[in-house]
């Protein structure tokens, strides 16, 4: 579904050049939930933003659903983006619009008739469990509710792909799980491919099938999620799993194994 070939992105500052994405190649299968994990500054956010060209990659190609995103002109890109949903860590909802109008925004941009927009928005607000919040404004919602609006907005135009840029990083653990469950349901129900980046192991564990580990702009390890936990190979993977295990053994030491 998504095929990334030899993607590069550098930032040139007066003092140095930072290579945020370094010759990254990836394949994401249709209907998959693909996780990309890494520490802060590993380049995962830049990578996912290159997929819909919110960041312009320097070289390499991104092909989504058989169409080369990197070769498109502005208008083609605009149309392609209408079928690529994106959810953000900071939600990025429009404070001036009601929940209903926020979800309607991508549909209006795509030029659908009013009646169809109304039906679609109602359908997706029901799906994310906000059927009683149509007329509320984002500033009146909790973080979890805001992200549900964000997800409904990303889904509204029935995209083939959803990009999730740290969607749960600003949420508490309980809300995180409810959002992950929602993403899982959506993936099952609509067969939409989800690419998500995260620095939380729990997120990978909970919903991803395939994953990649990013370190200094490069993909250092990729494969099924289970393999990562059983047999971490790269440095970053070992550190992630190591942090988890060291805290688990501390707990074992302090609180006993629960026998």
């Amino acid at each position: 579904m998504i095929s990334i070939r030899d993607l590069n992105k550098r930032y040139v500052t007066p003092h140095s050049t930072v290579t945020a994405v370094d010759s990254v190649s990836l394949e994401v299968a249709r209907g998959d939930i693909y996780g990309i994990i890494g520490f802060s500054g590993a380049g995962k956010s830049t990578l996912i933003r290159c997929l819909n060209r919110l960041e312009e990659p320097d070289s390499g190609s991104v092909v989504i659903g058989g169409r080369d995103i990197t070769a498109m002109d502005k208008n083609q890109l605009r149309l392609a983006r209408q079928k690529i949903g994106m959810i953000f860590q900071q939600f990025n909802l429009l404070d001036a619009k009601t929940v209903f109008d926020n979800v309607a925004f991508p549909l209006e941009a795509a030029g659908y008739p009013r009646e169809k927009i109304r039906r679609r928005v109602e359908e997706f607000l029901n799906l994310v469990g906000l059927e009683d919040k149509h007329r509320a404004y984002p500033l009146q919602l909790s973080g979890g509710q805001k992200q549900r609006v964000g997800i409904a907005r990303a889904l509204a135009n029935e995209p083939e792909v959803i990009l999730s840029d740290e969607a749960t990083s600003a949420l508490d653990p309980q809300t995180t799980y409810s959002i992950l469950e929602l993403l899982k349901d959506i993936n099952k129900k609509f067969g939409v491919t989800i690419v998500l980046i995260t620095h939380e192991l729990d997120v990978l564990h909970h919903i991803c099938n395939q994953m990649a580990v990013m370190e200094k702009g490069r993909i250092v390890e990729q494969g099924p999620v289970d393999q990562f936990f059983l047999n971490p190979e790269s440095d970053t993977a070992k550190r992630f799993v190591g942090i988890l295990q060291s805290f688990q053994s501390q707990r074992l030491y302090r609180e006993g194994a629960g026998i």
Partner: protein
Amino acid sequence: MNRDLWDLLLTGLGETMYMVILATAIALLIGLPLGVILVVTEKGNVWEAPRFNRVLGTVINVLRSFPSIILIVVLLPLARLIVGTTLGATAAIVPLSIGSAPFLARIIENCLKEVNFGKIEAAMAVGASPLRIITKVLIPEALPSLVRGLTIAVIAIIGFTAVAGAIGAGGLGSLAIRFGYLRYRDDIMLATIIVLVILVQGVQWGGDYIAGYINRKRYKFD
């Protein structure tokens, strides 16, 4: 206070209001598009054109560098061309609005830049056109701040009309200079200042009320 003084004040207030309202409206008509263009043509924004942005920024800075009284004098021939005279309130509206437009453009630019860029990116990510992003995201999101900015501009334009009054525009400013200053009529000077204070207070109060109303609507719980 006698009737003559009242008549003078009322006429002056009427002329000032007339100049302020029309000059603000025209300045807004010029300044709003300029402010929007200053923001959206910046690098990385929806209508990226950095070189054009720099040129426009420089032109606005040049216009803003003129001392206001000089700018009015420079623009008087233009007023003659448009309204046929260089005297009176109507003639003053031409330099007033052209003089305030660059100032207003900068204020509007500032207000629009307060909008979190993530919101613009979210709109870009769903494939919205630049025009839709400007009219449905950028301006509505900045609206309370734009109203406050416009309040500042209106009050500055009230001050600006007083300057114009010194060179034949009429209004409260001209009243204060012709009677209060040149004829030593302290009572008229004082009365003019009181009316101006009330006017400025009223504008500020109105602006605060509208901005607050928009914010309350977005925050209300029910």
